[in-house]
């Protein structure tokens, strides 16, 4: 059984992981870490909180180019690479730089030594040897190694489509509820139709619709919200984000971030890329009342 001080220490480490500690709490943490040195510099709570955070974050964004350049300049200062070196490192992202140009800037022209030349020669020879080997094993292998069984082609198991998954849910879940999707603004020129199916026992569902205009995913995204009777209306449950890039019928699996107990309405809003945590609800495009 842990004593009270260690309990307090754990409380502080937990709080530090999800928010910040005030000056008094930081001081208290330092004292307690002296008392329980095994907890000093413990990152495990923060790592757990970070992993949870990462499990829902959109990491697809790109850092602005000018910011990358600043950070590279900071790194050069920090590591002291500027001093006495003629070469300058490129600020271009590596994968972009590699498209037809060198990874270093034009001012960097390293001299080629004998050993470097020898290295390139060996590498070139290795490439040729590999090519010959591939030719012999791939194209002549069937006759040369006649005793071996031909390789068995692995046929990937087809994954059910969302259409099929929706049908499976309707067939298997006994508590499936259904709601019709309609445009939120009757004056909107877009004719939106469709339905939502949701199973409380499986905590799964699908939204199927037509008529939602395609969005430019670099500028916006659609987000589904679930209004649950068990939850304050101010905090609808995030049902996931999705993009529409085609006409016709679209089916999207619902990705409720927390348990949905008794949904009374679903709403689709148009939000910034990546979605939002709290929608200002100005961009409601469709609703489905249960």
């Amino acid at each position: 059984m842990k004593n009270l001080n260690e309990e307090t220490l754990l409380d502080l480490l937990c709080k530090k992981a999800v928010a910040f500690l005030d000056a008094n709490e930081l001081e208290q943490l330092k004292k307690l870490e002296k008392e329980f040195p095994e907890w000093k510099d413990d990152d495990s709570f923060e790592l757990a909180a970070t992993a949870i955070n990462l499990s829902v974050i959109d990491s697809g964004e790109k850092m602005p180019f000018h910011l990358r350049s600043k950070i590279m300049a900071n790194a050069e200062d920090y590591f002291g690479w500027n001093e006495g070196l003629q070469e300058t490192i490129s600020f271009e992202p590596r994968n972009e730089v590699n498209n037809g140009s060198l990874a270093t800037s034009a001012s960097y022209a390293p001299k080629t030594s004998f050993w470097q030349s020898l290295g390139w020669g060996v590498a070139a020879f290795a490439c040729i040897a590999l090519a010959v080997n591939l030719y012999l094993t791939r194209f002549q292998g069937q006759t040369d190694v006649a005793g071996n069984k031909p390789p068995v082609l692995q046929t990937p198991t087809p994954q059910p489509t969302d259409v099929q998954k929706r049908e499976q849910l309707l067939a298997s879940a006994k508590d499936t509820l259904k709601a019709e999707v309609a445009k939120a603004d009757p004056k909107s020129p877009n004719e939106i139709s469709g339905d939502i199916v949701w199973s409380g026992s499986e905590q799964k569902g699908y939204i199927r619709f037509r008529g939602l205009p395609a969005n430019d995913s670099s500028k916006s995204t659609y987000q589904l919200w679930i209004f649950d009777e068990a939850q304050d209306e101010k905090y609808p449950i995030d049902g996931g984000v999705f993009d529409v890039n085609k006409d016709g019928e679209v089916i999207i699996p619902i990705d409720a971030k927390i348990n949905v107990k008794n949904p009374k309405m679903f709403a689709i809003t148009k939000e910034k890329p990546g979605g939002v945590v709290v929608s200002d609800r100005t961009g409601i495009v469709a609703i489905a009342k249960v």
Partner: protein
Amino acid sequence: MAQVILQRIADGDKTAVQDCLDNYGGLVWSLARRMCRNNADAEDAVQEIFIDVWKNAGRFDENQASETTFIAMIARRRLIDRLRKVTRKPDIDSLEDILYEPSKDSNEDILTSIEAKEAAKAMKELRPEQRQAIYLSIVQGCSHQEIAETLDMPLGTVKTHIRRGLMQMREILGSGNSGNSKEVSA
């Protein structure tokens, strides 16, 4: 190969800095944008974060976390610290009002690290009320009071759920060091 970037940085390998930005720049930028008031603030924060990354690169232990999680942890720590300085308030409420993270489809293909995938799975192993409290706290940035109101629970219960849930997540993710894991498993 990606797992050794921080060790290369600690060794002063300048190409590793570019690799680091190629691999983790977007992630850090993404975190900063969500936790800062505006883009200018986010840019300042990202610069500070990467200085912290250079400083702490030698501390990285791949047995404890992936590079992604380690760098994101450094980012979160710096961002939280910046918010503390900006708000100058000793309570967590104002911070948590701002600590918004984006929500998105948690398709496993796009999760950013092994721990993130594990965390998504592990969250399902928590009791529903713990999961809700943890999610609202860490991801939605709700204050304990807001969570108490939302989930209609006493404030103390919310704190207990968050603490127990986080400890359980820590155990499931195996991020506790061996000595400490025992201590908090109860």
